[in-house]
């Protein structure tokens, strides 16, 4: 089991994701540089980590979507490969069209960093299949632009297709319908604003993030 952790200039949760999946989960991992245009064949799942890709001085993720590695990630995803984007990774997934909607500035217009409670809305994904429906996870958020927004019909579609994976118990950023994480129609691409890689080590105060990595490994094993 090997994760590929994408590194953009300005990624800053890349080492944290690498540490979590190798040290806390016990998987293997390697970094994928933004200028590479293929995903190595030994990669089983890809993580787009948090940070400020290319500085994010334009819209978050707006530059990253043009990088060679995102072309490769799209191919990987279209072939059914598992992709998870956390925080900036979620922003990049919406910008690049792998997930619908957009992430705009928090409704209070300030960066927010704190642990929040998150409800598992569906276990019918490779990322949540070992969690229980309605389970509450305590995960940190750390973002200035995490307010999820989309056209009403898109939101309706997400709900109708059981693609809202996580909702905030207490909405911190104004996200429509309290949405904290969604998946694509094929259910192999997940985007979420909270940071499961920051809740993978008992010393960090919560290990609730582990369930995502364990689910992913379980679903790969059952294939």
């Amino acid at each position, binding site marked *: 089991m090997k994760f590929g952790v994408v590194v953009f*200039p*300005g990624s*800053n949760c890349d080492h*944290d994701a690498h*540490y979590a999946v190798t040290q806390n989960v016990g998987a293997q991992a390697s970094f994928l540089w933004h200028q590479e245009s293929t995903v190595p064949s030994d990669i089983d799942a890809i993580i787009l980590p948090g940070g*400020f890709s290319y500085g*994010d001085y334009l819209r978050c993720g707006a530059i990253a979507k043009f990088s060679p590695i995102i072309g490769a990630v799209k191919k990987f995803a279209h072939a059914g490969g598992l992709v998870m984007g956390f925080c900036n990774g979620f922003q990049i997934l919406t910008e690049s069209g792998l997930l619908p909607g957009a992430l705009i500035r928090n409704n209070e217009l300030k960066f927010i*960093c704190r642990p929040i409670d998150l409800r598992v809305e569906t276990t019918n994904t490779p990322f949540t299949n070992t969690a229980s429906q309605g389970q509450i996870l305590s995960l940190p958020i750390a973002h200035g632009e995490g307010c999820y927004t989309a056209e009403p019909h898109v939101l309706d579609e997400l709900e109708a297709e059981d693609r809202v994976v996580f909702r905030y118990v207490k909405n911190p950023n104004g996200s429509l319908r309290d949405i904290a994480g969604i998946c694509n129609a094929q259910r192999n691409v997940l985007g979420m604003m909270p940071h499961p890689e920051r809740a993978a080590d008992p010393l960090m105060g919560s290990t609730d993030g582990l369930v995502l990595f364990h689910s992913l490994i379980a679903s790969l094993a059952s294939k």
Partner: protein
Amino acid sequence: MSTITPEVVAAHSLTPDEYQKVLSLLGREPSLTELGIFSVMWSEHCSYKSSKIHLKKLPTRSQLVILGPGENAGIIDIGQGYGIAFKIESHNHPSFIEPFQGAATGVGGILRDIFTMGARPIAVLDSIRFGPLDDPQTGARNRRILEGVVAGIAHYGNCFGVPTVGGECVFHKSYDGNPLVNVFALGVIPKDKIFFGRAEGIGNPVIYVGAKTGRDGIHGATMASDEFTEESKQKRPNVQMGDPFLEKLLLEACIEAMHSGAVVGIQDMGAAGLTCSTCEMGSRAGTGVEIDLMHVPQRETGMTPYEIMLSESQERMLLVAEKGREQEIFDIFDKWGLDAATVGVVTDDGMLRVRNHGELIAEINNRDLADEAPLYDRPHTKPHRNVPMEAPAFASTDLKTDLIKLLSSGDLCSKRWIYEQYDSMVRTNTLAGPGGDAAIVRIKETGTSVAVSLDGNGRYCYLDPREGAKLVVAEACRNVSTVGALPVAATNNLNFGNPQRPEIMAQLVEAIEGMADACTFFETPITGGNVSLYNETLGEGILPTPVIGIVGLLPTEAPVPSRFQAEGLTVMLLGGIGSSDEVHFGGTQYAYVLLKQMWGLPPALDMAVEKNVHIAIREIVAAGLAASAHDLSDGGFAVALAEASFDGIGAAVTLPSSSLRPELLLFHEAPSRILLSTNSPEEISKIADNHGVPVFVIGKTVKGQVVIEGLLNAAIEELQQPWASALENALHV
């Protein structure tokens, strides 16, 4: 006709005597560029000319100190082949003129100081001070400054990817036109990969890397060495612009270049930019540096040599590479999308020689710039103070109301509104983030963790700079000890007014001497720091505000919480009730917030007692006997008890009999005291006895209530709600 008139000299903030020294060192009249170079290198900010002879009194060595003052940051040994590099630095003046960029570039500057040594930054803390938010005249401006400073720190640290894990935020009228922004940064470094700012190796290429040079920040260091006047508001172009993304790339590229083995020496371009980095690197190595400005990457056209040499554009570094290995450096910086250009060469004659398209622009001995700045033993008399020794008559009408007012005051209220804007968790090392006694970050490489506390107290130091400085060191060491860490080193930021006033100089001298005594006694050598003088606006100085950063070491484990965690535990007061009287009550939060006065003396400190308390609490924490531990400081016992209750578990306590009147008993700020909850009171008493430290069982933890028998009875919610909402209310957000 000379272009260097007395007016031109004065405009460069050089005195006539200083200019005479320039003339005699050069043996001729300087060019305008040379005058500019001297003026920044001999500014207070770069040369420490008013403080240097006193800074020598500070202890700087111990068995753990790998590198003391003089380099970009101090380094101490944490074992297993690793060290930590850390330093604190101020960006006070720029943060007043342009709060957001001023604070942001303050963070950027100290981060570069850390990674220029080869260390990867893993934590930032901030000590920030403002004028009152509710002042009818200046409140609106103070609110704007605070919001800008916080947003600037958040912007830079969050984007760079370093967690901001703690700090302090304090208010006082004297910071009205002169906010203090002191930023501490810490990085981890393999001991065998420490880099120095030295231009070694005659013939080696001098390479410029990072951002292009622009016209921003010209003469920033000179500005930081002047008082503020009405005109300074127009000095906005002197403030630099920060680009944290570029800095993040610079970090990665520099570390990669250092690990390639091709880098001989490296220094960041901070204050005084290209000038400072060239002459300091040459001076330290005893070499010369010759550069041609036509090779310097420039952001705009038509810049003069004067502007290029004095620009303080951010995110730039100067490095000396091994001759013949330039291409390796260029390839690494190209990978990260950064400029790198050979701008000069190391020479053997000790001179800084600046050319522009071959034409000689400046030729000055490096040592004259870096080491020959005039040193002043400025006259110092009695420290300035303008308050009485005797206490006014006062009497509380309701102790609970007093406590609520204290908890919702600027200094003591929750700073959540501030610290939630900082990413305090990135890099997944934060064992204890903002809001506790000390921040703790783990070092993944070693299994060791580092505890850090920043502390300052302008009121204590105003009443008695010497004792105040000792109290500040004692408290920071107590904070670090309370989480179980052994304090091992310190960094200081000395924020004072105009040193040319003897009564202000006296504050500085006495504070340094007090700090030297305390740091010697607590075995925390000062490995570096910063002096910020001329913190005055329109002739009014700030309170003397030495800020100390104490670094401690502890094993990586789940930390002891500062709040009560379970009902029915025994509550103990280690260090006892402490001694006070009305004279020693004049510097307390109670006097400041409720009586709006200052008088008398700061609390009395017995350093031997204090140290024994530290030893005892570390032993208690290491043995796992404390369910919670919180040190008593600002606001005294009642405030500490309330703070410890904010997870919903309070306490019912009875204080030992005392002759102190209730206001003093609850709110005096005698040091050397720690509030504990425990399952093992006998073992704790035994440890305290062994170290000769008084300890009292004072009660039990209970749900939802804070009760001090006979004096105060409150539901936690009554105390917590005002504490939690005060800052947001004050900011009208």
